[in-house]
């Protein structure tokens, strides 16, 4: 049996047309499984957080709550609290400590003439995040509702993003060997709850904020206070808005 040229051309072109059609059909079948949280509409939210340095008492509630809520392994932190002791002029370097992330509070530390305060830290959920830019496999990404998240099934554990984050907010999960970080308690905020750290903060030093909600107090907060983000010169589009942030904080 021999194949005529006509057969070849017709069969090849049939195949050419049908394969993408089959592919599209398969994609359609596969796509059906990815279903969304019914009540939560991503397009209606854009998450951020406000932090009031003047209210933080360094109790460590946020650090412990975060570890419980997200099963963060011991010695790793998605949020932590730093204590700054800034000596009087003309000393240059602030003394920063964070014993066990501030999980169990801070032992007293006296230094004559110094000012001293707590700075809670966590992922800044940057709008132009360096960690997203360096990921070679697209495992870390910015979601439409303003979060920087990790697809753990695609992460290679290459650590590029750990290095790229200017705020030191990422770590490698010691069990799974893939990167992990603050999700801004996505599983909570998508159900209408606040984050674990905000829930347990006794003084509302930190408050979850939704920039797309016109009634959110964040608009008043941003309008009436002097507000700063960390490392603004890096143009990361950080969305943790600090009130009363000292110049010495890095």
């Amino acid at each position, binding site marked *: 049996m021999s194949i005529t040229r006509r057969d070849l051309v017709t069969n090849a072109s049939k195949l050419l047309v049908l394969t993408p059609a089959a592919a599209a059909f398969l994609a359609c079948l596969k796509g059906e499984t990815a279903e969304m949280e019914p009540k939560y509409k991503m397009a209606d939210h854009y998450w951020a957080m406000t932090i009031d340095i003047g209210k933080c008492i360094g109790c460590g509630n946020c650090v412990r709550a975060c570890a419980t809520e997200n099963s963060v392994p011991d010695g790793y932190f998605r949020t932590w609290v730093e204590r700054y002791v800034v000596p009087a002029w003309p000393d240059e370097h602030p003394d920063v400590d964070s014993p066990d992330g501030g999980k169990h509070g801070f032992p007293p530390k006296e230094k004559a003439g110094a000012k001293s305060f707590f700075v809670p830290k966590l992922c800044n959920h940057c709008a132009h995040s360096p960690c997203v830019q360096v990921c070679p496999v697209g495992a870390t990404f910015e979601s*439409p509702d303003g979060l920087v998240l990790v697809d753990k099934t695609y992460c290679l554990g290459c650590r590029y993003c750990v290095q790229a984050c200017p705020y030191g907010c990422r770590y490698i999960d010691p069990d799974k060997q893939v990167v992990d970080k603050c999700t801004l308690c996505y*599983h909570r905020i*998508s159900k209408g709850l606040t984050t674990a750290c905000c829930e347990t903060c*006794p003084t509302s030093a930190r408050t979850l904020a939704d920039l797309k909600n016109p009634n959110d107090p964040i608009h008043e907060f941003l309008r009436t206070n002097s507000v700063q983000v960390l490392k603004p010169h890096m143009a990361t589009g950080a969305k943790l808005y600090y009130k009363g942030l000292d110049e010495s904080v890095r």
Partner: protein
Amino acid sequence: MKDAAHLIRLAAVFAAGFIAFLLIRQALVPAGFGKYGHFRAGALDDIRARKVSFAGREQCAICHDDRVKELHAGKHAGVGCEACHEAQAKHAQLDDPSTGKPVLPDTKVLCARCHEKNNAKPRGFPQVATAEHSGGEPCKSCHNPHSPKL
């Protein structure tokens, strides 16, 4: 016409290659990729699927209305229940609150976390040197945790 034969063969090879590319791409690109951006849309659901551990203060109010009223009348009004009582989502299920009955906090440890004197705390925050202030007694022997002002 004879000269065109090898062109057609070449075209067939290209076509086969293209089809192979489409099939491999189909197999490798995960479902939902590109729906919201350069990532797998299902990853969002994976992250959202996690169970909550802290029920939130509104949830406690459903059953502990009296405690909420007591708390809100005092100086601890802004403090959430679970800031002192740890994560209670297991206990706060509406159908069966008896599972995971909360362990009551030890006030010696609990109160000092927030109120131990420390000069990094904001000036206006009420602080005591707990050892001197209480003389080793648990704080609750004088203060009501839910309404602490004496």
